[in-house]
């Protein structure tokens, strides 16, 4: 079978159902006039399709004449309202979960340490020390680059040491040295 016969047969499968563009039909007819094999192929396509189309109306005898609507009417009110109600508890739970997650992230955000006092303000970075997740101060004296200024008196009032960290081991720094 040549490539032309191959192409024509592809088009014939559409042509038997009037699905072929008119522009291709002329080329098909021209080939069929000269190719008996493709003519025979078209005839077998038409035979099989005609047999299939005979069964087009078979369902009419098997179908019930009763409408679906009366039975469906009884189911509809529950379906739509139930759908609306069912997602509401799920939506509320999802919102609550998100809120709890946000609160937990917020609490563990800075240092994972003990609860903050009301009105607490985070101290400048140079006064912060490393803490483990329980809030216990880690020994950072080995960090040679860590320098701490001596806090002034107001600092103790505003930030009582026990609420967030200790300055144990911290050495006074030469004030002329640059801050980190």
């Amino acid at each position, binding site marked *: 079978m040549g490539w032309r016969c191959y192409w024509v*047969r592809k088009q014939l499968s559409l042509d038997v159902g009037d*699905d072929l563009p008119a522009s291709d039909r002329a080329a098909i007819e021209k080939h069929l006039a000269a190719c008996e094999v493709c003519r025979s192929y078209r005839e077998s396509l038409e035979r099989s399709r005609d*047999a*299939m189309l005979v069964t087009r109306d078979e369902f009419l005898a098997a179908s019930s004449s009763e409408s679906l609507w009366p039975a469906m009417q009884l189911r509809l009110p529950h379906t739509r309202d139930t759908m609306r109600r069912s997602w509401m508890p799920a939506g509320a739970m999802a919102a609550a979960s998100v809120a709890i997650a946000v609160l937990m992230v917020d609490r563990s955000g800075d240092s994972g340490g003990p609860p903050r006092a009301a009105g607490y303000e985070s101290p400048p970075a140079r006064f912060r020390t490393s803490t483990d997740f329980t809030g216990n101060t880690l020994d950072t004296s080995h960090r040679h680059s860590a320098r701490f200024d001596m806090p002034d008196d107001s600092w103790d009032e505003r930030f009582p040491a026990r609420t967030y960290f200790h300055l144990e081991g911290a050495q006074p720094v030469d004030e002329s040295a640059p801050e980190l």
Partner: protein
Amino acid sequence: MIKLDEGQSCTRADLADAAVACDPSTDARLVEQVRHGDKEAFGVLVTRYEKKLQRVLYRLVRDPEQARDLAQETFLKVYQHLDRFDTSRRFGPWLFQVGVNQAIDWLRRRKPTVLLSQSPGDDEHAAEITDPDPRPRLELAEEVHQALEQIPLAYRTVLILRDLEGFSCSEVAAIEGRREATIRWRLSRAREMFRKVWESRQNVGR
């Protein structure tokens, strides 16, 4: 289309009569009415499409009762998701898309069954056919059905929708959610496959 004069009311029967033409604009209007809580409008849509939908489903599942159940489930599903339906699209293809998917899901879930040439209800249904001798017709229908069963479901569906139900290629494309070129290609392949199966069965029978 029903044209109403001022003050004239339109009954459900009027709408049902107009439904034969399946005017997309009335479908869209009915969908809007259903969204606003008018269940009777949905009843019009059901009566408009139920016969054709059941027929399509029957051709796929080959069981009238199952086709009826699937049709009910299709309408219920459509009713539940009506809020999400884009009224710029046509309602009919969307409905059949849901229905065909329901049938395909059911076919994939069911266990393979032995095809019977004569099921118990056939004698009863045969009496309703006005042919003088319905037996050859029923036998031919069963032969065609068995030949169709040998074609892969994706191709069989296109063949049923286009050749047996008369949907246009563009409507089949909308139902299947595919491009029209894809549907034409599948249709060509499906007809070739059916021809091959049919000819081989006819040759075996001789």
